[in-house]
């Protein structure tokens, strides 16, 4: 078994789960819920950076971050391939992944800044992260050719990023202002791999496997 360290809401763990589901190798993974901030922290033995996701292979080797784990899972099995070999397609996919991962980080940093006690909070940083979310989404709408084409790791990363924006900012109306991206997102969010990895679905899944 491969042990995947996750939390129910981690968008980076979600990328890995979606790749495994799309490839039909989800059964090879044992998901393990991870306490990142509480009293039962033990992620350090699988990842000194203390982040999820981390993947422990059968020989004890640990892999991280999500980009490495996704590529490893993709390599384990055949079609569909999410990391194309052909150069132009490959770097387009990897660039879109970097964009999607960057989008995911913005609401994460925004949330963490807002969660600080007032004296340690910086309005400037809150605004900086807030405008990054807007800027990245509208750039992606303008450069939509990067998103079009067969599904790659880039599309998965972008979908996880947009889903995370929705979760942290339920009132963000980016869908209306960015119609191409909005329509693309509606389509991908119908996929089984997407539905099966929402925070709620993950919590259920982890609850069941923790019994």
């Amino acid at each position, binding site marked *: 078994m491969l042990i995947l360290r996750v939390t129910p809401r981690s968008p980076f763990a979600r990328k890995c789960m979606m790749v495994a589901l799309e490839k039909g190798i989800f059964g090879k993974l044992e998901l393990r819920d991870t306490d990142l901030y509480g009293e039962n922290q033990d992620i350090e033995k699988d990842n000194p950076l203390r982040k999820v996701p981390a993947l422990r292979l059968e020989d004890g080797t640990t*892999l991280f971050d999500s980009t490495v784990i996704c590529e490893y899972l993709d390599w384990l099995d055949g079609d569909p391939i999410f990391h194309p070999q052909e150069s132009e397609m490959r770097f387009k996919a990897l660039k879109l992944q970097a964009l999607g991962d960057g989008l995911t980080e913005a609401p994460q940093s925004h949330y963490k800044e807002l969660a600080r006690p007032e004296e340690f909070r910086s309005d400037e940083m809150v605004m900086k992260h807030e405008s990054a979310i807007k800027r990245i989404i509208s750039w992606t709408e303008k450069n939509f050719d990067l998103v079009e084409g067969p599904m790659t790791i880039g599309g998965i990363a972008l979908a996880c990023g947009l889903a995370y924006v929705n979760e942290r900012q339920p009132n963000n109306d980016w869908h209306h202002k960015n119609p191409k991206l909005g329509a693309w997102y509606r389509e991908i969010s119908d996929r089984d791999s997407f539905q099966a990895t929402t925070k709620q679905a993950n919590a259920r899944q982890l609850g069941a496997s923790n019994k």
Partner: protein
Amino acid sequence: MKLFFSPLSPFARKVRIVAFEKNLYREVEFFKSERHNRPTELGPINPLLKVPTLIDNNGNSLFDSPVICEYLDSLTSEPVLFPKNGMNRWTALRQQALGDGGMDDAVKLAYEAGRPSGNRSPYWLGRWRQAVESTLNTLESEAPFSTDKLTIGPIAIGCFLGFLDQSRIIGDWRGYRGNLAAWFEGFRQRPAMQETEYKK
């Protein structure tokens, strides 16, 4: 090709080292991008507004640093910094993730330390410092890193350690980490490391 970089950025240094090791240094125009100019310079090509950003041979922009490094690696045959397959590849990518992750937290620590004194979060200062320290401990237990067949792994680790020296953000990291310190003493002599070292 054109690389937007900053002399202080350890991620940009990684790309410069790769360009050097791949014998592509002369193919790249290095453009120093100041923070306050990035919305104008990078806005149209990289909405993350981060260095390094590359304009590749086809005029397309590429980011972030692992993507640029792998792209440069694909342009010339030797040395192969991203092994194509198998455990060598996962070892190299895992090491790169350790180096990059360490840099990420060290950079965050430096930004936090740069906030006005009353505005620094003791919690995050502690958490990031701990992540940097435990990454160093993992590296100490795995050092030395083979450079007979150089990969992106040791390059990223070298950039991480170089950033710690340059920023002094956690003070002396070498104490109790003799393996890592000895390895880095050798690694930092490489011409690519010397060429890209930050000089005040």
